[in-house]
């Protein structure tokens, strides 16, 4: 299964990418929303994108809106992974079409359990 990790921090991409790889995903990295849209066009079978909120060029929210405006990506699950912890912000992301939301900092179990909620490779226990 293909997955995108979209974050302007290389460290964060490495951490999230490693976790997804361990969970059996083939990971494609992108540094911001615009980059991610380009990668997505090359990876049309991607089932999952982990999306940071605050990024240069195109932020996570704009990326989510762009993806949700495109029927081609209907099956793509979008999970925001962000330092934003205000409920209003979360609500905005969900209304824009995010499927799930993870607050930073997080652990491997958090990511695995969220994917379990989405019916993607979840924790076995």
């Amino acid at each position, binding site marked *: 299964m293909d997955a995108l990790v979209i974050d302007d921090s290389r460290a964060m991409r490495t951490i999230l990418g490693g976790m997804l790889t361990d969970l059996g995903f083939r990971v494609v990295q992108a540094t911001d929303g615009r980059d991610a849209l380009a990668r997505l066009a090359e990876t049309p079978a991607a089932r999952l994108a982990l999306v940071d909120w605050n990024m240069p060029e195109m932020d996570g929210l704009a990326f989510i809106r762009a993806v949700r405006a495109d029927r081609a990506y209907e099956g793509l699950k979008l999970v925001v992974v962000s330092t934003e912890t205000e*409920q209003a912000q*979360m609500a905005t992301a*969900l209304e824009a079409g995010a499927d799930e939301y993870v*607050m930073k900092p997080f652990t491997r*179990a*958090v990511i695995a*359990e969220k994917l379990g*909620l989405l019916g993607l490779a979840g924790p076995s*226990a």
Partner: protein
Amino acid sequence: MKQGGGMSAADGAAFREVARELTGIALSPEKDYFVEGRLEAVARARGLSLGELAQAVRSAPRGALAQEVAEALLIAETSFFRDPGLFEVLRLQVLPELIAARRAERRLALWSAACATGQEPYSLALLLVEHFPELEGWDVDILATDLSQQALDYAASAVYTQHEVNRGLPARLLVRHFEREAMTWRPRSAVRRLVRFARVDLLRPLPPLPRMDLVLLRNMLIYHDVETKRGVLASVRGRMRSDGRLVLGSAETTLYLDAGFEPSPELGVYRVKDAPSEAPGGGAGGRPDAGAEALDRGPSAPREGVPAVDRGAPCI
């Protein structure tokens, strides 16, 4: 994983012995890292090393400190919507069937029988509030019990860390049904008021309880031997309605343990096959409200139920 550096094998054995004596839980030596992790805080709070703590419980194996050690070892792993597939089964299958069956009496009694720090009963409450608006005006009662008073206090306060709400809780529910207070999160009162807490030791005769429609008894039996499992299953069954459902953890089963349950087609869910005619000491009978009267259920003070429940059975 932690190294066993701070704790000798003998100390580990002493702690395991206390846990076994006071809670019936048999921890294996491989779990020493877990024991050490749990007990470091207890030792530190007393200004003791782990070795000194072990010495203290050895010399007073039934004392207050030993009790605290045993309790610390009970508080275990849990999370909101642990095993999401199961909660889907509850939402799509089990709860709709129970609600249909209770349409006339408009009453539903649910029991989270080893609720730990409360994520499990609040997950049930969230499910009801979010997906079953038709229960408005029903008498819905989620009883949440555990042996550990520390866990119950935490559960009743309902103040969860960011890490805890990050785990397994759908973000939509976090947004709609929780209040954020600085870095902590608390279910709103509409969720909290459905749940009340009481200390109940499942290894002892149970106190009077309402006849339950649905019992969650998850990830508690795994710690116990076959005889204990049998006893717990039988006594829990004695508190259930004749068409009630039991839900166990993913590594647990009633098979070969209690013929009074039969597995449902849905994984992890069991139906009562032979309802005992009357629960000894229960007094709840099959009547909808009888048992509920034994418990005080003021919504503002969920723990008011504790003395009433404890009356029936001594707890450790």
